[in-house]
């Protein structure tokens, strides 16, 4: 059951304005669960309102790309463009999800299983 949809403000600005007309990020390294960390020693002056909002959110601690999109109420594709710029400018760094080819999958699955069982 979906909770009653509180229609969130869509904002008046179109996504392509936020991204300055770009639909692809400068780097193609963002997964939904890529973890993003902000550097607190970078100036926020000169950033667009969306990038500033993103930085203010991320300065509180680590979040995934999907969470950033959810909190900022922006499409994931737009958030990826903003993140690409902010990584390029040194404001953010990322911890990529382990590529599935290198994933010690049995070990990860066991950890997931242990964690879930501990919640019962």
């Amino acid at each position, binding site marked *: *059951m*979906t*909770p009653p*949809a509180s229609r969130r403000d869509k904002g008046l600005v179109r*996504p392509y304005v936020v991204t300055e007309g770009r639909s692809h990020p400068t780097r193609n390294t963002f*997964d*939904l*669960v*890529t*973890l993003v960390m902000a550097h607190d020693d970078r100036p926020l002056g000169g950033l667009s309102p969306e990038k500033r909002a993103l930085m203010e959110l991320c300065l*509180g*601690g*680590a*979040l*995934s790309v*999907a*969470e950033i*999109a*959810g*909190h900022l109420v*922006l*499409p*994931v*594709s737009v958030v990826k463009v903003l993140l690409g710029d902010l990584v390029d400018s040194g404001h953010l760094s990322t*911890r990529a*999800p*382990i*590529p*599935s080819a290198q994933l010690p*999958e*049995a070990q*990860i*699955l*066991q*950890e*997931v*299983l*242990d*964690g*879930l*069982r*501990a*919640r*019962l």
Partner: protein
Amino acid sequence: MDFVPASERASGAEDLYLPRTVRTAVKILVVGHFAVGKTTFVGSLSEIRPLRTEETMTQAGALVDDLAGIDGKTTTTVAMDFGRLTLSESLVLYLFGAPGQQRFTRLWQDMTQGALGALVLADTRRLEQSFEVMGLLEEHGLPYAVAVNHFDGAPVHPEEEIREALDLLPETPLVTCDARDRASSTRALITLVEYLSKRTAPETVQEYV
């Protein structure tokens, strides 16, 4: 300091951010047709208030949802709901809930890419509507288990009948759950992950009766 799951911490306030020690993030999909209980399932398990992101649908993916037999559901979302479970000091699991209609979007590509597997939620009143999403998962090579979400007033069928109706492979796990209940939902997820482990490392498995 010992790791304490967010759900068991004393403070009532949720932790918005991840613990600094988290190194690895993994994802599992919770999929199924419209109004099958995906959002409820994710909400029961998530340690944070579930979040939602919306993406512009392409024309090809714009389907009209069938509301037959579904009470009180008047809106169509082209959105993904997701939640978070910090499972250890170094590992976090994200659950992404989305209907199969989103297959044409970048969001669906993003969700399936690198996912460990998927839990298919099914409703005994509309079992046939699960085929589309099961087919999609097979196309993507994503292993899945099926959890029948029990709705009040929905018919209860023997497991064999449901297996047959869904045309499940013998090894595909099938469980019943109540998406509103955290323990029940957790057990459904455990069934999926046990299945994934078993597939990944068959040589280390001693006995599965």
